[in-house]
């Protein structure tokens, strides 16, 4: 008797905490970008086509510098974060927006401070930096792209090519490292995502 065919589904990537959410930070971010006649935005990755299209259709020029992939490649070469940071070699004050996503969750505290200082220098007056970070108990084991959908809804897509460690940073540490910015708005969601919108007033 033939064995019935059973469909096999791959749930290995589906981490239970990663439910979609509607981002208040992105709503504010886009509202602010819309006020600028010429907006140039930098994204540190991971490369995500939906996000590229979403921003590139709304800003004058969208820059991508995939630090996630650089960090991943550097792990085998001795894990020197400065080498990764060297890729942010843009002139000071040239961006109205910087998207860090959850890149800082893959960095140690000292490295976060260096990254935030560099990004602060790259922002134009009035520019904004968006940061996301997971609460400890909700942090996924793997690396995901935050994918922007209509209505500022964010879904997650596993980045199979990335194998990066994840560090937890408490709210106190986050507040401390983002203190370069005079204005920081923060949001927290049921899925454990924390969002920070930092403005360079």
């Amino acid at each position, binding site marked *: 008797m033939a064995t019935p065919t059973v469909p096999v589904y791959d749930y290995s990537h589906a981490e239970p905490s990663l439910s979609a959410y509607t981002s208040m930070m992105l709503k504010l971010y886009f509202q602010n970008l819309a006020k600028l006649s010429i907006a140039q935005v930098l994204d540190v990755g991971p490369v995500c086509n939906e996000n590229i299209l979403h921003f590139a259709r709304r800003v004058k020029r969208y820059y*991508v510098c995939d630090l996630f992939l650089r960090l991943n490649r550097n792990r085998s070469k001795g894990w020197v974060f400065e080498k990764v940071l060297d890729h942010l070699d843009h002139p000071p004050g040239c961006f109205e927006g910087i998207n860090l996503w959850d890149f800082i969750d893959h960095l140690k505290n000292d490295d976060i401070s260096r990254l935030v200082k560099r990004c602060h220098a790259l922002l134009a007056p009035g520019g904004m930096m968006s940061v996301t970070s997971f609460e400890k108990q909700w942090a996924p084991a793997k690396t995901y792209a935050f994918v922007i959908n209509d209505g500022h809804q964010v879904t997650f897509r596993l980045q199979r090519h990335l194998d990066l460690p994840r560090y937890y940073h408490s709210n106190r540490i986050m507040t401390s490292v983002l203190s370069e910015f005079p204005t920081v708005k923060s949001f927290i969601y049921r899925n454990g995502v924390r969002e920070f919108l930092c403005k360079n007033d």
Partner: protein
Amino acid sequence: MLKKGRKPEEDQNSPYDTTTKPGAPAPKSVASPSARTENTIIGENISIEGHIRGNEHLVIEGAMKGNVQMEGHDFKVGSRGRIEGEIKAQNVKISGQMIGNITTKGKVEITREADFMGDIRAKGISIEDGAYFKGSIELAQEPHRKTTLSAKSTNPATPTPVNDPKTETAKKAV
């Protein structure tokens, strides 16, 4: 090795497919009136230094240093291809390494194997997860999209920022 591959009739919409079926006629070595449907392939053991202008599709599997100008035709860097230079073509697909800027009237496609540094101006873009990308993207604004951010300025004399990071990402790297 320079090759010309006639594409199967059914694949005429995928200009990058250069495979030939067993028993199919050998690749032609001279241009024909139907050159538009052919790809010129620069093989992986070939290195070129200099500029290319052309009127048919081009695939680079080898190494090239120089500019490519072929508006109206498609250009591809294969997964083993390496190129440093400016590309002007109808549609561009990058699967190998490229340092340089791309200007197209059509679409740019960057696959997961690609390592790209440069600036892109195109009507459409597609970048696969896993591709390395450093550079900028400027999409051609469609007329009905004039309500987008960049067009919201009512002052036509809005100055360009002093620090435009149109960084010549590619130039630096080259």
